[in-house]
């Protein structure tokens, strides 16, 4: 039993930290978030060159065949600076392909993803942004040898830009994953005016989109894809929460009032100590979930939900207190505190909010029937 990174993982962490520090300043992050794509293509290119697009792609498809721990390492590093990129969306889509795709689908898409030639994303929910299976708002119907796709999807990360979208759609009441390339006739994408201004999300419309039979995936459980999405997002949240705390602690050491640094006042000090508890809890839960993904699949659903719950708590509270303990400057547009605060809120809802995560945990401890909400 060990929670120590291997030498390779430490090197990956160091490289990721460097890349993010070099590219992740406030101005760069804001400009990237506000650009049409929602990220800086040159930064993404650097990530690709470092192999990040290939992390979860199996070696057979030209990837690195690494695990969730490695993915979480880079996600956490990017999260620290809120650095926008298609890393998260593409990695989750690659995971979905690995979990659900046929060999032919994997051979067709994964090598392109690994090489950084193709970005991808997942469309898992309707425009309401809830993640119960019943909330899926895209439907498949048979049409000759193939299918047609109708409906909509909300909160699709990088959905207006991604080259490939893995859509969760209902076929005869069952959820199936479908690979829909960008530019398909009948597919529309509209970037959402999102609370988070350091990354892009889109609303997709499907209007009689042609889906060949070989674009429908073999299997793959909706809950498994969501668990991977949440484990990865939680790593990003943990990174952001830790950064929010660090920045606030630094400020509390420097800002002097009443003749002493505000961090000397217990009211401030104790609040920051409480944030440290949340960040440490998130850290434990995130790395455990990552290790479970690779080593203990049977525990993964609960571990991923736990990680998401803990990391959401941490980023939401750390970012709110980041504003507060900076005083007036923390409330300005110019200060980055609101960027973390915005990310806190949106990331806590994305892929299922606290209620959704506690529901998964409740199921795991046998309270499932009791918490099934009728809605």
């Amino acid at each position: 039993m060990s929670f120590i990174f291997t030498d390779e993982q430490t090197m990956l962490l160091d490289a990721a930290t460097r890349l993010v520090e070099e590219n992740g300043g406030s101005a760069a992050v804001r400009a990237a978030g506000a650009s049409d794509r929602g990220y800086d293509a040159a930064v993404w290119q650097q990530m690709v060159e470092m192999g990040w697009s290939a992390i979860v792609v199996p070696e057979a498809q030209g990837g690195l065949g690494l695990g969730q721990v490695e993915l979480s390492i880079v996600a956490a590093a990017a999260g620290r600076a809120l650095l926008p990129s298609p890393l998260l969306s593409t990695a989750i889509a690659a995971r979905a392909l690995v979990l659900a795709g046929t060999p032919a689908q994997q051979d067709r898409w994964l090598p392109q993803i690994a090489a950084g030639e193709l970005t991808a994303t997942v469309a898992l929910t309707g425009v309401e942004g809830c993640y119960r299976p019943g909330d899926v708002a895209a439907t498949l119907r048979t049409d000759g040898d193939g299918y047609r796709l109708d409906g909509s999807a909300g909160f699709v990360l990088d959905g207006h830009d991604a080259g490939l979208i893995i859509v969760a759609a209902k076929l005869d009441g069952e959820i199936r994953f479908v690979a829909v390339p960008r530019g398909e006739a009948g597919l529309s994408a509209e970037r959402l005016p999102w609370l988070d201004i350091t990354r892009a999300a889109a609303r997709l419309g499907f209007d009689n989109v042609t889906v060949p039979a070989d674009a429908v995936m073999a299997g793959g459980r909706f809950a498994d894809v969501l668990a991977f999405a949440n484990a990865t997002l939680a790593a990003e949240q943990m990174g952001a929460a830790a950064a929010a705390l660090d920045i606030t602690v630094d400020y509390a050491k420097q800002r002097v009032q009443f003749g002493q640094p505000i961090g000397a006042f217990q009211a401030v000090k104790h609040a920051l100590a409480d944030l440290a508890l949340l960040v440490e809890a998130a850290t434990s839960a995130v790395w455990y979930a990552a290790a479970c993904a690779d080593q203990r699949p049977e525990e993964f659903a609960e571990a991923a939900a736990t990680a998401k719950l803990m990391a959401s708590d941490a980023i939401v509270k750390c970012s709110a207190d980041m504003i507060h303990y900076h005083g007036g400057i923390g409330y300005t547009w110019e200060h980055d505190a609101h960027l973390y605060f915005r990310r806190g809120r949106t990331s806590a809802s994305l892929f299922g909010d606290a209620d959704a995560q506690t529901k998964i945990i409740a199921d795991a401890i046998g309270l499932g029937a009791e918490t099934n909400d009728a809605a």
Partner: protein
Amino acid sequence: MRLDFTPEQEAFRAEVRTWLDAQLSGEFAHIREIQGISEGAEQRFPWERHLGRAGWNQLSWPKAFGGREANLFEQVIFHEEYARSGAPGRLSHVGLELVAPTIMAFGNDEQRQRFLKPTAEVEIIWAQLFSEPNAGSDLANVQTRARLEDRPGGQVWVLEGQKIWSSFAQYSQWGMALVRTEPGSVGSKGLSMLLIPLDAKGVDIRPIRQMSGGSSFNEVFLDGAETAAANVLGAAGEGWKVAMGTLTFERGVSTLGQQMGFRNELDHILRVAKENGAARNPGIAKRLARAQAELRTMRYTALRMLGGSGLSLAGLTYKLYYTSWHQRLGELAMDVLGPAGEIAVPGSDAYRLQKMYLESRSDSIWAGTSQIQRNIIAERGLGLPREGKAAR
């Protein structure tokens, strides 16, 4: 990162479990029924001596002191299995977890020879005599005095003063007392750590009744009590350094196994919630799920501290995290029970959970209150300045 324990560690776990199961279904079966911190002392001591004779109490100790030199993992595995077995908490805790490590770290050979073996075998039970009426969080304000006097058999320390909140002192033969040996000194200077016999004249131990009904702690009046001059741990005048050493042991390994005991408590509450229908209340179900998530996280943190890097901040946050969690669990237990939980018939679910609810209120006080913990996290972990001093 590796989640699995090694085959050797798993074998060790199996050894511990097999041994505990055999004892607790045989000769010591009745021990599992004992609840609460301060019940059933007369049955618990034979059990704890039994553990000592079998070598479990001194698991981590050097071979020279009769130990097994178990590493950190094995120690935690033992504590986890012990908590899982449902056997009660240890009355010999102070001696095993606080005094013995302090003697090993600061004592001389003679003291080690004299005290360690009987401590491990629970022939000596110890009290930690640190706190005083006016020295709690501000421990350096200790006022109990000791001065050297000549006696026919040699010099002795003579003690005057009062200690308080001394856990299990009513059962103890010896105490480890932080006292002022330099007259007129203030604060952390001029203190010494003395080992004092408690069954001697000049020592008056009075149990204090606690809000949970039992009495695990005491007042200890020292009125001319004597101990041999040699019974000082570390050098005279170095008591503060020794006390700080003890406090790090207090927040040490044994607490890492704690979450297994919490596991039992949460499982109990889950069972009750399913039986009495409370789990159908979505608000309760959510709190139960959250308690589960946080307990898991606590275990991950313990594992991370054991087998990982970047331990320091996690280690500093651990006590505050688990004590806050445990107090919330007590509240949740009462909400799961509903008003019926306010009526406690001995042996019932309500009786056990009510006791836990009451006893958990002490968690934020002992071994450094939650405020002191936050100071420690902020100052040592986050590097924030001390109040009132930094800007001068």
